């Protein structure tokens, strides 16, 4: 049986013992950022205590050790998402950075032509909206948006109508951070391929919850952040197909991304280095690999089983509360969003916090989606490997108690 020993897992996360207003912390804001296991914290500390050095250019031993640890981390990431080769993995500072990288190298590439269009969806996080808006404005492209159905899923038929031979690129999230909706990205990518459009998948919300196989998804780019998958802030990755990475121009200029610099002419390095200007987050990369190893040790399928049981239980308990609406489809991953009639999400969030429950309230960086559902925000509980059924039960009780105070 694939099952998670949650009590043991919790021992790896010292922060879970924190008290909030005298109450035991119940951390349900994992879609914003996850907590970090000691294994990850130790990996980053040992790096600094044993081999810290700048990489790639040094003849001395620390530099060699740091370089190979960093390149080994790249291999770990490549294996985790089933990239064809490590050179398809670019270290970035996070999902937002990864998406902006892709958007800007496309701008520079001259591939996108005035009058073409880019397709995103109504579920997207601002990080997968604004970069494309900016590019569309600069290149005079049209931004098309796949509408969201009432159940929080994408309107597939509308997608098929929107996409056409002028579609240059389709950028879609794997899983919605607001509603937990899982998109059928393999299908979306295959339709994009049929019109020669490139595909960018925002995997910020999937990397810690789902088995990711970029080859079977069939996307051209896949983006994620370390901090949403048990790794530190300030590091993330961009997967890109090697042939595309070779063709496309670099993004930032600086050390490491060049082959040769003269004031007359500069030539660029090969991927992935071409896209990694300056000193990278060396420690961050290594800690990210440690986090992926940690996830692998637990096993993605055990994690899925546990988390889906948790979120279903949460839906069941919360669903019994008078006036409570849960958004999104019944099959959700990671995040569960709700509102209670006549109650402002901020008021409920404030009282829950007093009782130790860390939930997110507001628009979750998805203002267009909130508008679509006519709300200014929601309460969102989002789950990780260390959450328990007891926490979910207590959450429902705490919501009831808050309602008594607010009504």
């Amino acid at each position, binding site marked *: 049986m694939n099952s998670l020993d949650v009590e043991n897992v919790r021992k790896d996360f010292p922060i879970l013992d924190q008290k909030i*207003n005298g109450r035991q912390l119940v951390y349900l804001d994992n879609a914003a950022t996850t907590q970090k296991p000691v294994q990850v914290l130790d990996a980053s500390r040992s790096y600094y205590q044993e081999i810290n050095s700048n990489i790639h250019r040094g003849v001395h031993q620390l530099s060699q050790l740091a370089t190979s640890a960093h390149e080994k981390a790249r291999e770990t990431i490549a294996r985790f998402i089933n990239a064809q080769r490590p050179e398809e993995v670019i270290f970035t500072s996070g999902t937002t950075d990864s998406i902006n990288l892709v958007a800007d190298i496309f701008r520079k590439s001259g591939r996108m032509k005035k009058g073409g269009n880019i397709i995103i969806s109504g579920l997207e996080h601002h990080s997968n909206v604004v970069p494309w808006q900016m590019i569309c404005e600069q290149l005079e492209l049209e931004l098309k948006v796949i509408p969201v159905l009432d159940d929080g899923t994408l309107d597939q038929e509308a997608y098929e109508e929107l996409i056409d031979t002028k579609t240059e690129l389709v950028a879609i999230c794997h899983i919605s951070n607001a509603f937990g909706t899982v998109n059928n990205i393999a299908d979306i990518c295959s339709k994009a391929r049929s019109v020669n459009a490139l595909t960018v998948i925002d995997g910020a919300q999937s990397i810690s919850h789902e088995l990711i196989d970029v080859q079977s998804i069939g996307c051209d780019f896949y983006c994620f952040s370390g901090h949403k998958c048990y790794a530190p802030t300030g590091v993330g990755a961009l997967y890109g197909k090697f042939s595309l990475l070779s063709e496309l121009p670099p993004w930032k200029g600086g050390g490491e991304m060049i082959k040769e610099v003269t004031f007359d002419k500069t030539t660029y390095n090969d991927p992935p280095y071409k896209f990694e200007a300056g000193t990278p987050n060396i420690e961050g990369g290594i800690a990210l690999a440690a986090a992926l190893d940690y996830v692998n040790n637990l096993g993605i399928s055990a994690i899925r089983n546990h988390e889906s049981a948790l979120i279903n239980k949460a839906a069941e308990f919360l669903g019994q509360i008078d006036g409570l609406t849960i958004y999104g489809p019944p099959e959700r991953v990671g995040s569960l969003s709700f509102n209670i009639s006549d109650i*402002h*999400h*901020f*008021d409920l*969030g*404030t*009282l829950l*916090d*007093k009782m130790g429950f860390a939930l997110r*309230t*507001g628009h979750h960086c998805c203002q267009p989606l909130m508008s679509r559902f006519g709300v*200014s*925000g929601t309460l969102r509980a989002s789950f990780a490997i260390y959450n328990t059924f007891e926490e979910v039960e207590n959450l429902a009780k705490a919501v009831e108690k808050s309602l008594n*105070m*607010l009504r």
Partner: protein
Amino acid sequence: MTIAEKQKELLDELNLFQDWTERYEYVIGLGKNLPQMDAALLTNDRLIKGCQSQVWLDCNVVEGKMVFMADSDSVITKGMIALFVRILNEEEPDDVIAADLSFIDQTGLKEHLAPTRANALGLMAAQMKKCAIEASSGHPR
């Protein structure tokens, strides 16, 4: 009573409560009882957009004193607004300008309700002072 005296009175009152539940229930009660602003006054130029909740603020000078009306979509924010209004209403512009609003930190109400960036309540406190400055310099809006 001076503004400082009103603040002291308020803190004494809040200190009577045993725990956060009572304190918040009190604030929620204040929020519910603060009169709703006339719908015609809920205009964009009176709107203060916060990170999580919205506040509408209306300022007037009546016989040399500041008269504030405010509203919010969040009842806890509205209760906090009621505290501000109680402290600053009917005071002279110069006293409002000089008022030390950090008393809100001592209420034992949630830290983030204290004036900070992108917080509707913090922005509202700033806006109240701004109104008083305009009134004091003879340019009430």
